[in-house]
């Protein structure tokens, strides 16, 4: 079942300051999502934000390692399994002032399959954290849980590396997330069936893209069509291309944005890129974060720019 906004938001938003949920997904493992999350979180804290990093990569959690922390005593799994009552009890401090982390649970595969109500409980408590930004490392894959966290974020970051498999997974991730969102707002069974059909690229309805789906729905039911259109417009993934090595790699982010616009009807943006940088893995081997270990490195500088851009809602434009 999809997590609807109304389930999560009531009350949670009524209180004091506006906290933002950011998430980093990407579909594929090993593309540096955890390092991106750790370093963007680190930079946000440097900029004076109170930040909590959440390692939602429940199958392969390693955010704490990226931050140079030992395996945590308590993890998100303890909260999900109700061994602790409040999500505050699984918060761990880091060396960086203003930056705390909620670790995932490498030992608990079943947690990757958390139930709907557990998910609502996690989202509600995450939203209620007294911080400025909650940054969620989504881990690999396109499971419903991952997509729901991605969809409920104020800033949805999609990480890719300049490799065919990563790009392919990136598109799959975007399409899955989008269709899930469209399905959640479908007002009747007929529309839901169309959305479900569209998920299969070789579907008999002949619907190849989200834009075609919306057009089809509009034909059937103008009201639903408008609802889908609104959802499409509010879905704005922000690409980050990690591990770039040359100008052509940098340009891939622009290609992704153009392709999303022209062929998926989606307004994506290119938030930034991070060069492949030996300083990053040297720091990883020392179990330190390159942001503090090698602050003058190219990657660190690019993370600072990327983060500033994300805060201000700026992107790299169309690239031509």
């Amino acid at each position: 079942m999809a997590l609807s906004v109304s389930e999560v938001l009531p009350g949670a938003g009524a209180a004091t300051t506006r906290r933002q949920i950011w998430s980093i997904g990407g579909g594929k493992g090993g593309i540096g999502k955890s390092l991106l999350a750790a370093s963007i979180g680190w930079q946000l804290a440097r900029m004076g934000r109170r930040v909590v990093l959440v390692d939602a990569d429940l199958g392969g959690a390693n955010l704490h390692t990226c931050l140079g922390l030992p395996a945590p005593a308590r993890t998100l799994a303890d909260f999900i399994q109700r061994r602790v009552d409040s999500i505050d009890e699984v918060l761990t401090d880091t060396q960086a002032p203003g930056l705390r982390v909620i670790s995932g649970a490498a030992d608990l595969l079943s947690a990757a399959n958390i139930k709907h109500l557990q998910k609502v409980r996690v989202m509600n408590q995450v939203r209620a954290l007294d911080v400025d930004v909650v940054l969620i490392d989504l881990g690999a894959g396109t499971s419903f849980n991952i997509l729901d966290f991605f969809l409920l974020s104020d800033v949805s970051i999609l990480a890719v590396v300049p490799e065919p498999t990563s790009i392919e997974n990136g598109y799959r991730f975007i399409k899955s997330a989008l269709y899930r969102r469209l399905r959640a707002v479908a007002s009747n069974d007929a529309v839901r069936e169309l959305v479900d059909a569209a998920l299969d690229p070789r579907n008999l309805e002949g619907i190849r893209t989200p834009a075609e789906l919306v057009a089809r729905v509009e034909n059937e039911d103008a009201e639903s069509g408008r609802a889908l259109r609104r959802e499409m417009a509010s879905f704005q993934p922000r690409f980050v291309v990690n591990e770039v090595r040359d100008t052509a790699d940098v340009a891939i982010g622009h290609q992704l944005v153009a392709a999303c616009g022209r062929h998926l009807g989606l307004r994506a943006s290119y938030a930034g890129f991070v060069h492949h940088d030996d300083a990053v893995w040297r720091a990883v081997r020392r179990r330190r974060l390159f942001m503090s270990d090698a602050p003058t490195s190219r990657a660190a500088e690019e993370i600072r720019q990327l983060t500033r851009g994300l805060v201000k809602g700026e992107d790299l434009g169309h690239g031509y």
Partner: protein
Amino acid sequence: MATDAAPQGAPAGPGQDARDDLYAALGLEPRASRDEVERAYRFSLELYGEGALGTYSLLEPAEAEAQRVRVCEAYEVLSDEQKRQAYDAAQGFLPPETPVLPFPSPKHSRDAQELPEVLTGAELRRMREARGVSLRHIASVTKIGLRYLEYLEEDRFQFLPAPVYLRGFLQEYARLVGIDPRRTADAYMSRLAPKR
């Protein structure tokens, strides 16, 4: 690459943006400048090139091929002044470069004399600031990412796009600052290592 325009008629499928005019085929708005048409064309060719990373897993080979045909068709009309005029008129589009406008009035003639043979990013910034033009304004009018404009002024060549796009960025920048676009681009790019 299919460069001959037409016969099969490229499918302007409903899978694209709502607009399916020739400008949209290149990811442009009507009124785009000639330079923009040029750059958007090159970009689109790369975008739909065989095995291009950004599209190969999204489009079937036949779709990419159809897009290439469409891009070439669009370019053939939009790069030709007369054909473009006729097309714009038929579609009811405003003519190219109808001002979206640079706010300080350009004083090309005077600045043309002032421009040195070689220009650094710092000098560009000085000229821009002297005219009270913000980078943010340039970014919002030209759709060039603010960060690229910063890289430009900081001379951070390794972060800047390929020369063909960089030249365009410089010309747009110059246009909005009110200095001679071509000479600005030449003077700035003269410092780039020839291997680029």
